[in-house]
């Protein structure tokens, strides 16, 4: 029932030869499963691929790209399809290049503190693998139990620990990339200092699968922190909470995560856990601290207690036991479902502003909430200015749907006006494409197009994304 026309039988046979019959999915029912991701794009027959091809090696990716390039067929790379902006949705059908069977961690080089892995490795698996050797791969997007490294690189994924440890980009040392015509490009390497030529590695990070297919990646690692602790600090207002985070960073007490929740989030959590809201609570910080041992954590905890005290906190709890740590984190981890439970639908957004603008953007979002009559709980990563407003609505009601989209427009506008960006860690994909040109301006757009045209002259790689 798909609207796509069938591929030439010869071409299909070519794919089967390239990767093996057992790695090609052709049945209409099966390929339907590769037509969506975790974005709000509706299910649609137009985004159903004609074929799903699952290479296991760089050479196989290359063979597939040669065939696709020759026939000018769109190719959309896909890992776990856990992206939030439609990055792995095959907008024009064609081939979904599923990298989920390339799951090898190739080399853990402890001397250089680096690891190389294939794109289909799950983020958490790489983390755990390194942790067993006392090494630390910090990027931890919310979906890290599901998401794969290829997708993390394509979207330049962040996570809660970005405030102290940065994002995926900060860890990519080198890439092996299959280009649109099937040729294989190698970038970067294990040399920490490297200024030989353009930073092609950086070019591919965050390129959303539009410039090439990452077939292998080299990441740098850090030593695994020996101890971790969790603190929960409650404030009357978001302004006070944000000011407290800024004061911590200025003082050089950098938490490894600084998650902030507004009053609406706290209410959602209280509702889900059937507890009552603390009197006067308008904002809450869940802080993770890490260090060399219990003494280091104690020292940090005491300094944070003092700093937040000056910032006007009304509640402070430090987890003393493993169970308490779990309980405090559970509040943050359960937040998404608690917020989701408040309405039939949730448009979860991902904007990023300069840290100093955090309180102001929250104020503007609250105003948007009042103007549209829709609840918009805000949580986010206070330490890095990345926030996730959730527009709660019932999309089955056309009036609410219209107001929800109006709210999203307003949120983007507010972020841009305050010197922020459309996306902190989810990418542009399809869902933010209408805002892209306006956000970056004509010169940047032209530069993007020039890069795209140089690397993918037939525009077959992930068409219809970003702009």
């Amino acid at each position: 029932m798909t609207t796509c026309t069938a591929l030439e039988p010869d071409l299909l046979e070519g794919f089967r030869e390239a990767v093996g019959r057992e790695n090609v999915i052709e049945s209409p029912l099966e390929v339907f499963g590769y037509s969506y991701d975790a974005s709000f794009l509706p299910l649609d027959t137009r985004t159903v691929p004609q074929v799903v091809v699952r290479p296991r090696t760089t050479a196989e990716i290359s063979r597939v790209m040669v065939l696709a390039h020759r026939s000018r067929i769109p190719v959309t790379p896909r890992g776990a399809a856990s992206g939030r902006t439609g990055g792995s949705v095959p907008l024009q059908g064609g081939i979904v290049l599923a990298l989920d069977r390339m799951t090898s961690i190739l080399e853990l080089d402890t001397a250089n503190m680096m690891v190389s892995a294939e794109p289909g490795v799950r983020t958490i698996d790489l983390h755990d693998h390194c942790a067993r050797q006392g090494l630390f791969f910090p990027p931890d997007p919310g979906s890290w139990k599901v998401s794969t490294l290829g997708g993390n690189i394509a979207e330049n994924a962040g996570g809660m620990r970005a405030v102290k440890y940065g994002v995926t980009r900060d860890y990519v040392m080198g890439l092996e990339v299959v280009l649109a015509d099937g040729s294989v490009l190698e970038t970067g390497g294990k040399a920490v200092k490297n200024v030989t030529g353009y930073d092609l590695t950086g070019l591919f990070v965050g390129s959303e699968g539009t410039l090439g297919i990452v077939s292998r990646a080299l990441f740098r690692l850090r030593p695994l922190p020996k101890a971790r602790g969790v603190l929960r600090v409650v404030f009357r207002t978001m302004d006070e909470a944000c000011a407290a985070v800024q004061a911590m960073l200025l003082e050089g007490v950098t938490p490894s995560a600084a998650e902030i929740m507004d009053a609406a989030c706290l209410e959602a959590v209280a509702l889900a856990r059937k507890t009552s809201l603390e009197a006067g609570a308008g904002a809450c910080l869940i802080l993770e601290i890490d260090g060399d041992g219990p003494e280091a954590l104690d020292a940090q905890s005491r300094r944070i207690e003092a700093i937040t005290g000056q910032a006007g906190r009304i509640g402070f709890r430090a987890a003393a036991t493993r169970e308490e740590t779990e309980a405090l984190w559970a509040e943050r981890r359960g937040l998404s479902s608690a917020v989701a439970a408040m309405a039939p639908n949730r448009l979860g957004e991902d904007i990023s502003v300069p840290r100093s603008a955090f309180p102001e953007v929250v104020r503007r979002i609250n105003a948007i909430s009042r103007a549209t009559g829709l609840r918009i709980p805000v949580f986010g990563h206070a330490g890095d200015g990345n926030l996730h407003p959730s527009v709660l609505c019932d999309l089955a009601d056309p009036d609410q749907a219209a107001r929800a989209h109006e709210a999203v427009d307003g949120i983007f506008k507010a972020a841009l006006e305050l010197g922020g960006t459309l996306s902190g860690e989810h990418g542009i994909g399809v869902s933010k494409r209408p805002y892209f040109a306006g956000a970056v301006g004509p010169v940047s757009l032209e530069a993007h197009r020039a890069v795209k045209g140089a690397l993918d002259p037939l525009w077959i790689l992930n068409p219809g994304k970003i702009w």
Partner: protein
Amino acid sequence: MVSAAPKAGLAPLAAARQKVLGCDRCGSCLPVCPLFDVQDVERASARGKNALVRGLAEGLLAPGREAQEALEFCLLCRACTDACPGKVPTDEAMVQARQALADTLGHTPLRSRLIGRTLRRRSLVTLGAAALTGLRFLGLHRLLPSSVVPREVSRRSYLARRAGPALLGAPAPGVPPAVHPTARVAYFQGCGMKLLFPDASRSTQRILGGLSAFQRPDHPCCGLPHLAHGQRAAFLELARENIRAFEGADLVVTDCASCGGTLKHLASWFEGNPEWEGPAARFAAKVMDLTEYLVAAGYRPRALPGATFTYHDPCHLARGQGIRRQPRQLLEQAGQLVELSAKERCCGGSGSFHLEHPAAAAAILQRKQADIQGTGAQVVVTACPGCLIQLTRAADQSGGAFQALHISQVI
């Protein structure tokens, strides 16, 4: 009313779609779905099946045999729902979607239909049980595929193999039920226990008998096989018969996690039905799992010195009924309990799933077997005949490294 909607198929599919609308396709279910673990195509995952339901309901996909088979390829284990931020009940959606397709396309897989017909008639189950006893006596059951007739280990042979004569024979001393001292207790003997594990069922009755004079009313199947495979009308008829059969009991105790889970949830299927809503709710409130009842009644199993157990949580007991503590408490009193690393991971049994999809079920079981052997326990214990079929097979494959027993056989 809950019977088939006038436009066969359409209304139930809309209901299934409603169940999965909360799925935002985040993929949290992917790492926990046992089927996606052994068959890495999107269609096999909970997310894939939720999307399939929407695709079918929204006219993006044509309903047909392939779709029906894809919807059958679900263990109903609820691991996905547990991991889901929005708690989407994929299992319920599957049950409803299967019904919708069965109503529209009219056919379900042959074997589940056969089982459905047999289990609907209690006399056939009794006959089957007698026939299997005969086959076992003659040793002929070995000619059938092992998963159809598992090799049951009796409590007697278990005790004989591992301990001295002092432990044989006499049931452990009972303590009067603490919660309902005068409650009229009835035993719900599920088809799996009656047909496939008669010794375990006798152990259950021995324990129940030590606590009170319990009833054994004549009753049919709990109806889960019918419900799960698009025979809702049959399920509702069986439910009504069961409600009537247990009218004279205050507590309905079962040693089958799947029966218990189904019976405890009966009320929801009769909501809005003036005649049956009340009786169904009253019946459901009386149902207890054996372990739940025993702990509430203060039963203390006799300790078996040196016995080491590991415990496999049946999906329909742990996630289905929230019962995790009671079986462990009983096992810790009976011996030493060593936990599995993935204790709540489905064993791949799931009713007739292991007959319909032997390769997938075997792959899932292989992981379970490795987990069991990793504990070093002598016995893997569970509380559902569906799991026991699979675990018995794993025990056979282990070459005697461990035994598989129902919890009533070791407490």
